[in-house]
């Protein structure tokens, strides 16, 4: 009996092994050797594995999982680099660009990563669910991973049942059609039309409706909502029928080697201060190479990133043959140009005059990648952090986070490499030395008014503008500034200079190129007011009265008179308070007259409008006071410092590890050899005030502060400043030293030659013969 059980177990094990090997065979389809891409005239399938018939009413969106499945293993692909965000088993490898949660009102720039890269926070640590993460960053994600959660890991507050999951979007990279539209993808993700996004972005059809407006119980099989055809319209798709043939097979213009534009949709990085025409691309791109010629992968989509030591994390690699050295030096750098060349016909660099220690201690990218080190770090914008590449009427891109490059930092193997840098900014709860970032919503709940100083002014400007002539616009005058409403309903700096009366009046009208007083001058004590003035005053006060959640009744104080609208009439009464020399608008509450916006708001708007910052130190102190009422300690981290409230309720800036800048290596853009560091000699880096070693990185962020952290470039590199200055100084004397060495060598060499000649003369007897003669 025992033997029987044993044999059954063995048979089962063998069968299991065989089935595994068959599975592996199926997954790793061997390449037949043909280098073309098959024409993809294929039936589209929906998420129920049903063929899509575009002429049917209410067809479902296409599903990559089932459409591509007959030939490509979806499960295998979904483990690829681009689709494993948040996957527990994902090997992280070298640090990459973190996802940055940008929330301007609260001054939050929170770097997030599922990979525990230094300085980043795991989304679940701060309470972000897969749903939240997808809504925040799905705009630049390729689907899969965290945006396609397993049913058992779905959190209660999410709406995956309505929106569907974000499947791996194969078309995002492989669709060669010019209709492939990343902006459409972002728009559909924002509308929570997750399962429709690939169809819309791929240009396969037109997607309407918004899942975000549909009730939480709606399901895709429910179809259209007959009760609401205007607001809560469930998402639907109308396929482009010209793509389909009579057998309902769609032509997808698929390529195995995606063009650069597909990569750049999510991986663009460009200097912030230049125009598009000024931008020089990577030298490899200019030479005609495509991204995918270096960044390759097989069906597993384990994309080769191309850094040294990647083989530890990528099963496709067994060495460094896809690194800079792999192409430019070949297998064995020590063998020089005589060895077989590297990949892609890359030129062999001779590096004449470079001490070999440079190749041991520096990555190739130090000298060849990123911008030339100038006096200041170069500010760049990246697709994912600054929301680039999403086009429409609304402005999607953000100024924050401010990302700088290059700072040179050592990797795990001690090699210096160029990195990008950003200074995190966020509110946090502090317990001992431990920091827990707060979600922006938590901060807003406690201190919304403090964090939205321009909201009241914007509402007032909007209300005033509505009752002005069509060519007039209400503006706010602050010391040295004219503030106007922008398209997003916020305040922006008007390009017009402040008028002469800006010291005395707060509210004005912009008409054409002129800034005029909102209330023209009049005699308040006159028996009867000019009818035009009267109607203007009534209009303004009524417009203000239409605002909700205001502290009192709108009124105008001018000299010793108070004007109010009472039952559509302008009522004038004596004003016992201090006489105003100019007409002042305000709120009358319990007999007390207050200006329309408080002094705090005026001060804060005056400081912030027209700048990149969104917070003042005064606001931070007030918010911390509001948060600390919860009997816990809260801090604000920004510009490399941790801001805390002292015993005297004054703000203090302290150092803290959580405030340190977050950095990640950069590899592109690669500059041509003639623009590489060292082309002008050692002095490119080794001199007494070399920007490479001594320029400074000043903490930046949403906070307007003078207490920002300043770090020297050499501190990032772990190099001693004094030694590097001494070493730099030695290069100033080096030409002299070379000349001195040459002279001494000449003298010794000549004497050696003489001695050698003498020895030869003695040996040959020539000298003795000469002496005898």
């Amino acid at each position, binding site marked *: 009996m025992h033997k029987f059980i044993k044999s059954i177990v063995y048979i089962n094990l063998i069968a299991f092994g065989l089935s595994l090997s068959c599975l592996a065979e199926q997954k790793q389809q061997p390449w037949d050797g043909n280098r073309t891409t098959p024409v993809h005239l294929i039936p589209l399938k929906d998420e129920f594995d049903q063929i899509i018939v575009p002429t049917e009413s209410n067809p479902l969106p296409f599903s990559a999982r089932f459409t591509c499945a007959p030939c490509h293993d979806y499960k295998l692909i979904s483990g690829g680099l681009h689709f494993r965000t948040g996957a527990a088993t994902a090997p992280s490898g070298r640090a990459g660009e973190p996802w940055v949660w940008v929330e301007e009102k609260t001054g939050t720039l929170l770097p997030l990563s599922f990979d525990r890269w230094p300085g980043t926070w795991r989304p679940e640590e701060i309470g972000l669910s897969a749903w939240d993460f997808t809504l925040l960053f799905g705009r630049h994600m390729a689907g899969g991973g965290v945006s396609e959660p397993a049913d058992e890991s779905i959190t209660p507050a999410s709406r995956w049942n309505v929106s569907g999951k974000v499947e791996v979007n194969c078309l995002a990279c492989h669709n060669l059609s010019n209709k492939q539209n990343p902006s459409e993808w972002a728009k559909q993700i924002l509308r929570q039309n997750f399962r429709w996004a690939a169809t819309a972005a791929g240009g396969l059809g037109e997607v309407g409706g918004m899942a975000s407006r549909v009730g939480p119980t709606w399901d895709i099989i429910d179809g259209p909502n007959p009760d609401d055809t205007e607001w809560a319209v469930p998402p639907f798709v109308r396929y482009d029928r010209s793509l389909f043939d009579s057998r309902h097979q769609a032509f997808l213009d698929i390529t195995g080697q995606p063009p650069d534009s597909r990569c750049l949709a999510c991986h663009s990085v460009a200097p912030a201060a230049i125009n598009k025409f000024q931008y020089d691309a990577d030298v490899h791109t200019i030479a005609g190479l495509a991204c995918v010629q270096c960044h390759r992968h097989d069906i597993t989509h384990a994309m080769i990133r191309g850094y040294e030591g990647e083989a530890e994390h990528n099963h496709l690699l067994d060495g460094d043959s896809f690194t800079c050295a792999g192409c430019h030096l070949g297998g064995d*750098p*020590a*063998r*020089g140009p005589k060895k077989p060349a590297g990949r892609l016909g890359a030129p062999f660099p*001779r*590096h*004449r*005059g*470079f*001490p*070999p*220690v440079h*190749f041991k201690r520096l990555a190739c990218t130090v000298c060849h990648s990123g911008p030339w080190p100038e006096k200041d770090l170069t500010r760049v914008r990246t697709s994912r952090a600054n929301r680039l590449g999403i086009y429409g009427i609304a402005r999607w891109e953000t100024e924050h986070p401010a990302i700088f490059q290059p700072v040179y930092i050592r990797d795990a193997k001690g090699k210096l490499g160029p990195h990008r840098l950003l200074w995190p900014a966020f509110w946090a709860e502090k317990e001992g030395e431990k920091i827990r970032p707060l979600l922006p919503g938590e901060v807003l709940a406690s201190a919304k008014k403090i964090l939205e100083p321009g909201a009241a002014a914007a509402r007032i400007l909007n209300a005033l503008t509505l009752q002005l002539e069509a060519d007039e616009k209400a503006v706010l005058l602050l010391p040295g500034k004219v503030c106007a409403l922008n398209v997003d309903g916020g305040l922006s700096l008007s390009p017009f200079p402040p008028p002469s009366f800006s010291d005395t009046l707060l509210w004005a009208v912009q008409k054409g190129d002129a800034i005029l007083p909102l209330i023209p001058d009049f005699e308040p004590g006159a028996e009867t007011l000019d009818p035009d003035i009267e109607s203007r005053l009534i209009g303004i006060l009524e417009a203000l009265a239409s605002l909700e959640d205001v502290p009192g009744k709108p009124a105008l104080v001018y000299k010793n008179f108070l004007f109010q609208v009472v039952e559509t009439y302008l009522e004038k009464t004596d004003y016992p308070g201090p006489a105003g020399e100019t007409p002042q608008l305000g709120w009358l509450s319990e007999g007390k007259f207050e200006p329309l916006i408080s002094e705090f708001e005026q001060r804060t708007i005056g400081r912030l409008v027209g700048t990149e910052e969104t917070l003042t130190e005064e606001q931070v102190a007030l918010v911390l006071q509001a948060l600390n009422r919860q009997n816990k300690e809260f801090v604000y981290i920004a510009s490399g410092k941790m801001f805390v409230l002292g015993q005297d309720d004054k703000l203090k800036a302290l150092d803290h590890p959580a405030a340190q800048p977050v950095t990640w290596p950069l590899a592109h853009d690669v500059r041509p050899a003639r623009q590489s560091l060292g082309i002008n*000699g050692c002095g490119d880096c080794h001199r007494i005030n070399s920007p490479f070693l001594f320029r400074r990185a000043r903490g930046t962020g949403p906070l307007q502060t003078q207490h920002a952290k300043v770090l020297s470039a050499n501190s990032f590199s772990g190099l*001693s400043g004094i*030694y590097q200055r*001494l*070493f730099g100084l*030695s290069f100033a004397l*080096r030409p002299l*030293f*070379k000349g*001195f*060495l*040459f002279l*001494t*060598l000449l*003298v*010794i*060499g000549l*004497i*050696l030659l003489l*001695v050698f000649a*003498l*020895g030869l003369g*003695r*040996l040959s*007897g020539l000298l*003795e013969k000469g002496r005898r003669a």
Partner: protein
Amino acid sequence: MTAFRVVSLATVMVLIALLGYRRFQASVLLGKQPFLSTFRAYLFWAARTTASLFKKGGWGKTRSFFHVWLGSYPESWQKLALSGAWLSFFYLAASGLGLAIFCPRGLYGIPLLLHVLGGGVFILCLTLLVILRAKDYLPLLPEQKQLERRRSFWRSFPASLPRPILFWLLVISGFSLALTALLSMLPYFAFEAQLDLIAIHRYSGLIALLTAILFLDQALPRPGS
């Protein structure tokens, strides 16, 4: 680099041990002893001799030896050049070989800066010494007649020959050290050539050190002399 570490450590240790053994033989009267007991006695002698350098009076002895040695050079220029050459050479050998052998990163940082500075001092002093002393080490070879008279070429060399040979060997290795340092600073040599230059520099340094040890052994008074 590993090969250089092994070769330099082995050759320096073997040479010092051999020279020490010669002095041990000359200073201690030993009958026919088994190898192990001779070896033990040698080790004991070596330890005692080394320790005596650090004992009270050891430093004085060393200093007086250098005084005597310098005294044999008549001109102050020569004394200065000799002192400069030996002192800088001592630092160059300690920093260059010491760090190359015992520090995985090799020579770097402040020691490297001082090494370059010391190299400048050494080559200047060596140049002065070559100018001032070359004539004293010239009669390398016997007269032609003597050569013809003697049956063997090697036997024809005078007994004082090792010192001139060591002198010129030191000059040649010093020349090679300075030349490789200069060439590596010029923008003409590619990566592989730079590696070769470093290797030549290292081995020249090793040869210079071995020569200097032999030279010092020649100059130091023999036991019983």
